[in-house]
């Protein structure tokens, strides 16, 4: 079972790299959705006895991250009618290599740090930090608003993985609150994206920094 959990963590790491290296926004949305589904299912494997609140929050996370948010984003992408290619600040290949190096660095550092972590989730902390940092890379290196939202989602996924450490301590209300926050922010961002598109006829966020009358 522990091995299975570790395999899931590894799949999450691989999806991170694929998200960095892919050139189509639609594919990245699908990758992030898949990551969300795996994340949603993780608590069910980590926890030994499954309770009703755990099940509810897990199913809610799967539905929201795996289906609702991707659908909202696909709709935003369709409405914006933009070119579906990602325009990165640094190229796709360098950013993938950069992501790989960051992952390696995180693993190296976490092997030096003593934690009171139980062995069964030994990949949890490095995976979460690597996912957070890769989310940052996605946020920083992309110009289009939608790609930046995807970076934000990956970042949030990383934080969610870290919160799995406290899975017994977090009440269901808090978890639901987190999911609601995420949902609302994505919802608002999608609307803003539409407005950016209407105002500048592109999704390039660099336009936002130019002042004009």
């Amino acid at each position, binding site marked *: 079972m*522990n*091995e*299975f959990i*570790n*395999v899931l*963590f*590894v*799949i999450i*790491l*691989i999806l991170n*790299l*694929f998200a960095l*290296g892919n*050139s189509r926004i639609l594919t990245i949305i699908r990758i992030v959705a898949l990551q969300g589904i795996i994340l949603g299912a993780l608590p069910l494997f980590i926890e030994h006895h499954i309770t009703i609140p755990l099940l509810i929050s897990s199913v809610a996370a799967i539905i929201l991250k795996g289906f609702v948010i991707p659908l909202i984003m696909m709709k935003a992408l369709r409405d914006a009618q933009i070119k579906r290619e990602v325009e990165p600040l640094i190229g*796709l*290949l360098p950013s*993938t*290599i950069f992501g*790989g190096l960051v*992952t*390696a660095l995180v*693993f*190296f550092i*976490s*092997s030096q740090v003593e934690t009171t972590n139980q*062995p*069964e989730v*030994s*990949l949890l902390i*490095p995976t979460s930090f690597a996912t957070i940092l890769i989310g940052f890379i996605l946020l920083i290196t992309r110009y289009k608003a939608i790609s930046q939202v995807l970076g934000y989602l990956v970042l949030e996924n990383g934080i969610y993985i870290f919160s799995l450490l406290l899975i017994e301590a977090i009440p269901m209300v808090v978890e639901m609150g987190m999911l609601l926050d995420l949902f609302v922010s994505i919802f608002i961002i999608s609307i803003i994206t539409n407005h950016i598109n209407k105002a500048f006829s592109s999704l390039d966020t660099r336009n936002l920094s130019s002042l004009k009358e």
Partner: protein
Amino acid sequence: MIQIFIHLLVLLIFPPLLPGVVNKTKALFAGRTGAPFFQLYYDIFKLMKKGMVISSTTTWVFTVAPVITLSCVLIAGLIIPIGNAPSCIFFTGDFLVFTYLFGLARFFTTAAALDTGSAFEGMGSSREVTFASLIEPALFFAFIVLVKLTGSLNLSGMVKAGSAIQYHTGSIASLVMIILGLYILFLAENSRIPVDDPNTHLELTMIHEVMVLDHSGPLLGIIEYASAMKFFVIGSILINIVISIFSITGWINYIVFIAGMLILSFVVGVTESIMARLKMSRVPSLLISSILLCGSSFIILLR
């Protein structure tokens, strides 16, 4: 003794079936009936009966290259284990020989292509060599992971990674990573679809096919046979690692192995049906992703 006999039998007779399975799967996806499973056997027999046309600009390198390629792949096939039995030849560090046998085969294929003096074939050789330089680090990272997991320095011991070791956390995780990395490598090395399209004869897309354009008759037959065998040999590393995770022993191993190879061919067929060939400039990033996969699995293992 009987194991060596089975090994040779499987190695010599089985490989041309695999591309047939791949093509049948692709035909199934496209809604065609497709060529029969044994098409490649017929093709090879047909080519063996034909005469050869050899360009007057070529030297002995051109004629000798397919034979060297076939013998390199054949020796590599003797080093890999089939099923649970140890391979015919094994010694410390044979994985280095294994890797560079493919290097030698590649050298002669590209040299023969350059020997024809055609600019078109030179382009193919240049691509082949460029991508090969990206394949090698990934393969070595995968081998390092296997050596670290098993503590064995020959391929027969190495590919039994799953069953031979006392599990410690993260070993299956890193095995999954190198299986994925090796699969990308396998597709690239056998010039399958995301990297190269084996069916087209277009200037923009070809890598392997372009280098063998001038070969004809028996030489082409040998090349076809060698590339089918290469498919088998590299695939069998992958299959051996996967099988070793579920520790199966005894004679059933051979059946599981053969079934595994057929499933692998089916998976390749599915991959080819649902994916488009990558733009030539995007191929290096796919190969580098396989280096990253194998490299990070090594890092996970080290901690």
